[in-house]
């Protein structure tokens, strides 16, 4: 099976230019690589500042990458000129975190849903409206709601509008940037269920960015864990949740609160300290100051991703030493 999405050595660095210099170069992401097969779903998980959102944005060229390659269905996206890129956007779309902010505040919902079709020059004005109304009902909005403005909707409904807008051009690839973290649990369940259905129906490929391992486990078939701008572990979902290899991933998984009081007594690896700032990254392995197992080599050398099981890689010097 060939991958629809192939990302290689993505990097995004900020700052460093100008006079007087505005500060050190901040490596928001560095050397990020992954593949997503057609109809696959990769979950990108990490804490704040890990670079997961930057990865999503760089991929869609919403921020220009500093380095790296991204092949989408064989096309070299980072090399595309503006016009070609705009055409390709019909095939890859993004859902944002905050549904309050992701819709144009002064454009009716129907206008926003059908706008991508007009931009791509698809259909007539009438057929575009038809298509928008049909898709809106598919995501659970009634046609008469189309005339309303975004502020007249609740957060969950706005997220439905955003989904309809993203899917109107029938894209293959959907980037979801924390699509439910601004929503309540019950609304999150509605949206996740909707997305699962649409993924099957439209044959979508997902890059699902989230800090919530529960959501990732529910929605994805592959997991990548990021820490300070790098992927530290990437694996098929089952393999990852059964045997996480990287000490950070293990800790993360053990401290996620589980809604089951019976599990209170489970063993946990508590981390000290907080995620470091990308302005001032630690030497060697970025995780070593918080790692319970850190050795001398971890302070000196940055580990690279190594395969440890089929499809399962981790960037840790000591990963093999553990069961």
């Amino acid at each position: 099976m060939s991958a629809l999405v192939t990302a290689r050595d993505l990097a995004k660095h900020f700052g460093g230019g100008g006079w007087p210099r505005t500060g050190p170069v901040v490596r928001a992401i560095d050397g990020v690589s992954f593949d997503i097969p057609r109809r696959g779903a990769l979950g990108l998980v990490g804490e704040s500042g890990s670079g997961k959102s930057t990865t999503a944005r760089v991929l869609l060229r919403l921020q220009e990458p500093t380095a790296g390659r991204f092949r989408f269905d064989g096309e070299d996206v980072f090399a595309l000129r503006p016009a070609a890129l705009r055409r390709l956007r019909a095939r890859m779309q993004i859902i944002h975190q905050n549904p309050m902010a992701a819709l144009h505040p002064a454009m009716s919902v129907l206008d926003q849903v059908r706008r991508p079709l007009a931009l791509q020059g698809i259909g007539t004005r009438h057929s575009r409206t038809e298509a928008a109304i049909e898709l809106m009902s598919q995501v659970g909005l009634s046609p008469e709601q189309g005339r309303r403005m975004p502020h007249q909707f609740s957060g969950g409904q706005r997220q439905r509008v955003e989904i309809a807008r993203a899917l109107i051009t029938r894209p293959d690839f959907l980037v979801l940037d924390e699509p439910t973290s601004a929503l309540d649990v019950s609304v999150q369940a509605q949206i996740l269920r909707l997305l699962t259905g649409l993924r099957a129906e439209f044959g979508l490929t997902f890059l699902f960015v989230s800090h919530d391992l529960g959501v990732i486990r529910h929605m994805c078939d592959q997991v990548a864990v990021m820490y300070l701008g790098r992927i530290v572990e990437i694996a098929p979902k089952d393999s990852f949740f059964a045997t996480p290899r990287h000490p950070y991933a293990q800790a993360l998984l053990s401290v996620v609160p589980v809604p089951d009081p019976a599990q209170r007594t489970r063993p946990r690896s508590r981390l000290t300290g907080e995620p470091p700032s990308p302005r001032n990254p630690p030497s060697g392995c970025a995780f070593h100051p918080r790692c319970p197992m850190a050795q001398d080599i971890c302070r000196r050398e940055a580990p690279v991703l190594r395969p440890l099981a089929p499809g399962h890689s981790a960037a840790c010097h000591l990963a093999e030493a553990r069961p």
Partner: protein
Amino acid sequence: MDPVLEIDGLCLEFRSDRGPVKVLDGITLSVSRGETLGLVGESGCGKSVTGLSVMRLLPSPPARVTAGDIRLGGESLLSLPEAGMRGLRGKRIAMIFQDPMVSLNPVTTIGAQLAETLAIHGADGRLRSRVEAALAAVGIGDAAQAARAYPHQFSGGMRQRAMIAMMLACRPEVLIADEPTTALDVTVQAQVLDLIRDLQAEIGMAVVLVTHNLGVVAESCDRVAVMYAGCVVETGPVAAIFAAPQHPYTRALLAAIPRADADSATLSVIEGRVPDLVDPPQGCRFHPRCPRASDRCRTEKPPRRDLGAGRYVVCHHPEADA
């Protein structure tokens, strides 16, 4: 065990352009020494407002208590004059907030903000050593240096620790923690929850943990009160409620969480949306979204049923009846 803090039938309204918003409708809760009560619910359910009204920190107007009482150690808080209430805040009853980035004064040092709490509640002359002791107690390494630091020089987790140090410096009887870890990363969240638990054991205070995260409740609370649209729909020991929720809302809420520790099949979905509290539904406020709703639920407010072992459910048709 005698409860330290009791809320008894509290009703509260907010004045608005469209008429009074009935934000709280008959909240009844209690929490005892050394106990942690989780106050859980979705946004707009009134959990934060409940915390703020215990502290009497809601501006009035627009907020107005229309019925009920709040008692601390048997003494009514609502009938206290404001000056008397001020003497209790930060001394016998304290509160920490969601976002440590904005809840500390940015232009004053951490030490000065802490010292001020101690001074106002009549600490003796050795303020500096007490400030440093309080900072050390929350696991802040170099307390002397931390006291001289400004909030923006701290990370989110450190700020929340400083906030806790400030609020617990006078060893209060009750701590209201309003989403104390929501703005923090999950690894830091665990540290802060551990810290609160440790300090609780040491001081023996009662904790009301306001949160939207049922996972946090399961891991750190003894008892839980589930709120929906301004009402407490179910209260009881955490283990019992998570094992066998009695209210249809609690049950659906628990089944809506995608879990990291196990594969969940399909998530349960609660159809519809939260009601408008200017004109809340008659009878049970949950009935328009409830799969078990009957005619009775549409007209008659459900009673607070005592299920024994400290469990209460506010429902005409709890699961136990099925």
